[in-house]
C-alpha cells in the first residue's frame, strides 16, 4: 500500500518537495471518496480544507438567482480543488460537487497553515505553488470571459 506522501508527490503542485516537506504536508491529509452528486463543500461555508483529486471530476458550481445553477469549472485528476483555506476570510467561493465517483486526498488547511507558520521555508514554497495554481485559474478564466467561440470570433 502506498503512503500518502508517495501519492501526493505525483501531483504537479507537490512535485519537487523534499521528503521531509512531503511528510509534513501528507501528515495533514487523508484519503476520501465522494459518490457522484455528493457535495465536497458548499459556497459560503468555512474553508478549512482543500483536495487533491486522484480520480474523477469535481465541479465548482454557483447559484445564479433566476437561472439554472452554473458550473464555472471542473477539476480533474492531479489538480487541486480549493485555495480559500490559504487566505482570509477562509470561505468557499463556490460549491464543490462530485460529477462522478471522486477519490481524493483531503487536507486539513488549519493544520497545514500552522505548519507553514512554524516552518516559513515550507510556507513560502507552498504559497508559491498555490500562487501558480491561482495564476493558471485566472488566465483560464480570462480566456473563458473572452467568449472566443461566440459570434464574430470564429
Amino acid at each position, binding site marked *: 500500500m502506498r503512503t500518502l506522501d508517495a501519492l501526493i508527490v505525483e501531483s*504537479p503542485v507537490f512535485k519537487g518537495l523534499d521528503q521531509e516537506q512531503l511528510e509534513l504536508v501528507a501528515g495533514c491529509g487523508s484519503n476520501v471518496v465522494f459518490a457522484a452528486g455528493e457535495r465536497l463543500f458548499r459556497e459560503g461555508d468555512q474553508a478549512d480544507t482543500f483536495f487533491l483529486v486522484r480520480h474523477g*471530476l469535481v*465541479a465548482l*458550481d454557483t447559484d445564479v438567482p433566476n437561472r*439554472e*445553477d*452554473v*458550473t*464555472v*469549472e*471542473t477539476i*480533474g*485528476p*492531479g489538480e487541486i480543488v480549493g485555495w480559500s483555506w490559504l487566505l482570509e476570510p477562509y470561505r468557499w467561493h463556490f460549491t464543490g*460537487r462530485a*460529477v*462522478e465517483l471522486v477519490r481524493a486526498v483531503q487536507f486539513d488547511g488549519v493544520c497545514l497553515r500552522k505548519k507553514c507558520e512554524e516552518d516559513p521555508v515550507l510556507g513560502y514554497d507552498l504559497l508559491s505553488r498555490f500562487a501558480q495554481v491561482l495564476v493558471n485559474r485566472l488566465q*483560464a478564466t480570462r*480566456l*473563458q470571459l*473572452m*467568449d*472566443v*467561440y*461566440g*459570434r*464574430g*470570433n*470564429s
Partner: protein
Amino acid sequence: MAAATAETAAAVRGSMTPLSYRVVGKRRENHDNWTLELEPVADAIDKIGPGQFNMLYAFGVGEVPISTSGDVEKTGTTLVHTIRAVGSVTNALCAARPGDVLGVRGPFGNQWPLDAAVGKDLLIVAGGVGLAPLRPAFYHALAHRKEFGEVTLLYGGRTPEDLLFRRELERWRARLDANVAVTVDAATTEWSGRVGVVPKLIPSARFDPEDTVAFVCGPEIMMRFTALPLVDAGIPAERIYLSMERTMRCGIGLCGHCQCGPTIICRDGAVYTWEYLEKWMGVPQL
C-alpha cells in the same frame, strides 16, 4: 513566352470559374451550423484533402472559403462542408435545400501534414467550429490507426449546445484506440462533462512530447493560448501546425486579402507551423 502567359491566364480563369454542385444532403449540427453534401452537376473539382478548403458560392449573394469537413477518402466526388451561419453568404449557404445548386471553386490551400505524424503521437486540438477542418484529419488517423502512436482529440466548445458532431464525438469517445476529451467554457449543472478552456486538457492528455505532431484549429486567440502550453509541454514549435483564417477573396494568391506576413494564406497556408506563425501572431492588427 506568349504560350506560357496564355497558359497561366487559362489556369487563373479556370480556378476563378465556379463549377455547379447540387445540394444532396443537409444536416443541422447545432443552432447555427449546418453540414452540406454537394455533388457535381457535371464536371468535378480536383480531389480535396484534409485541411484544404473550397470557395462556396451562393449565386447572387457571394462567395466564402469553407474547409472540407468530410471523410475525403470515402466521399469520392461528393463534397462535405460544415458551415456556420454568421453572415449574408453563410446564411444563404445554410438556407440552401437539397436540390439547390451552388458554385464551387477549389480545392485551395495546403493540407494537414499527416505524413509528418506517421510513427508519432498525433494530438489534435480543436476549438468551436475549428473541429470541422480537423475532422478529415481525425478520420484519416482512425482509418490508418496502425500508422500512429497515441491518437488524441481535445475539443473545446462554448456550451454543450454549441458542440459540433455530438453523436460522432460520443462514438469516438467509446473507441479504445483513441483518446477524446471534450470541454466547454460554460455550462449548467446538468452537463456532466468538463468545464474549462481547451488548453486545460493538455496536461492530462497522453502523448510523448518529443515524438508528437500537433494539429490545432479554432479562433486565433484559442490557437495562441493552445500553442504556448504545447511548447511548454515539450512539443517543438516546428511540429505544431495551426490553420489560419483570414478574409479570402480569390483563393489563388492574387488579391492579397489574406496576407499573413510574407505569405498569402489561401495559397501558402492555411496550415502553418507555430514556428512560422508565432512571430506574425504577435504583430498587432495583422
